[in-house]
């Protein structure tokens, strides 16, 4: 049998050089039966992972478990400086793409028709293509309706990319709205307060205006004072 210290070192070395997250099973597979007892291996590997997690405390990296296994990644507090170093600009995603993704995340499995129904607009080929190319979504079957449209669902690649172990880590869709609305109201209140402060007598701003109100200073018949567009 191999010394525990050495096993930890090997697991660390593997995780540091692996291309993507590794599962306990895969890590155990690195050792032959002389090095590690097969039936003990899951327990030993897990002990290694705990040990590595502890060692990370004094480092700038952390051991993280995501959907497809364990991986080392830079701690959030150092990410700013690493970002300065990167040559590749991270891709940005449009609202249309994010909304489509959100529907697939929360309503899966869904057809393209379902997505269009929910968003009230047609979904561009490009969005579905980008999501497929990134490996974030996949076809999981066909809906048993005329035309048998494909049903889409998210993948482990999606979870790994967004640093998630499972979809359960995401808030319920109804909770998000409450969070967002609360925030929006606070901002709204702040703006209203702002306006109140500036509403000094003399040049006050009225939130309601009667339609027959005359505009002072514009006695000139020629002047065009235009309110656009109307809703009273």
């Amino acid at each position, binding site marked *: 049998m191999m010394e525990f210290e050495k096993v930890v070192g090997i697991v660390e070395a593997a995780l540091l050089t692996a291309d993507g997250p590794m599962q306990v099973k895969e890590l155990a597979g690195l050792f032959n039966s002389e090095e590690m007892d097969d039936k003990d291996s899951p327990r030993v590997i897990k002990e290694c992972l705990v040990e590595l997690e502890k060692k990370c405390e004094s480092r700038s990296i952390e051991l993280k478990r995501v959907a497809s296994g364990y991986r080392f*990644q830079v701690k959030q507090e150092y990410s700013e400086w690493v970002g300065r170093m990167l040559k590749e600009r991270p891709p940005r995603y449009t609202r249309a793409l*994010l909304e489509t993704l*959100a529907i697939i995340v*929360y309503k899966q499995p869904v057809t393209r028709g379902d997505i269009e129904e929910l968003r009230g607009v047609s979904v561009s080929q490009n969005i579905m293509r980008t999501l497929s190319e990134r490996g974030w979504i996949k076809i999981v079957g066909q809906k048993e309706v005329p035309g048998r449209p494909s049903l889409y669902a998210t993948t482990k690649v999606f979870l790994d990319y967004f640093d998630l172990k499972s979809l359960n880590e995401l808030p319920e869709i109804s909770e998000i709205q409450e969070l967002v609305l609360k925030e929006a109201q606070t901002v709204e209140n702040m703006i209203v307060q702002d306006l109140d402060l500036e509403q000094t007598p003399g040049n006050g701003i009225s939130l309601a205006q009667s339609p027959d109100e005359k505009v002072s200073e514009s006695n000139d018949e020629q002047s065009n*004072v*235009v309110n656009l567009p109307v809703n009273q």
Partner: protein
Amino acid sequence: MSEDSVVAHVGGNPVAELPKDLHIPPEALRVFIELFEGPLDLLLYLVRRQNIDILEIEVAEITKQYIDYINLMESLEIDLAGEYLAMAATLTEIKSRMLLPRTGEDEEEEDPKEELIRRLQEYEEIKCAAGMIEELPRLERDIHLLSVEKPVIDEDIPEVEVDLKEVLIAFSAVLRRAEMFSKHQVEYETLSVRDSMASILTKLNLQDGYLSFHDLFEAEYGRMEIIVNFLALMELLRESLIDLVQTEAYSEIHIKVVNSDR
């Protein structure tokens, strides 16, 4: 003149057509409509702007506002996606159906107003979820993986395998990105229109309630800032907080605070 055909008030008098000499660039209005992800998004904006709960929407009022916007766009010959027009038809239908007494047979069907409310609620949930996903820490942007040099390995390590399809897919992604850069594309921005409304009003107050149009659109402003400023201006006009004043055709437009003291 019927209320519905009014597109603007001039000096307090309703007019059905925009004055030809007031230059609101149609391009800017096009940008305005492009800020929305579709008719549901525009409707939601109209509802939220009034600070009312979706459950309490008044179909007649919302329909009117929505159709005002659509008419304005059409009068400026801005091409709207078919979905916007379809929604206008749906809204009108709901409005008229609500005027009719309900017969027993109708109970089988979903109340059209409830259906609209459900769609708006669902869409708002999706919109919020999309915002939440955008904020999640993610690879490439917030999370950085390690790249440590491997030790020298004696055994033969198989070369990285590449499928030709992967190369083609990569190329298609490049092409699409290049396309995206060249086309007119509105990015997801967090700059708030309301914020900008507040700052325009602040500026106005500091300058005795009178500003030149150009003061809000200085050259050094970014494109997004100009758009947001423009939207804020539209919104202030719509809420009758400011007026645009032009003393003669083609002269400079001024923005003035609407004076509420009489």
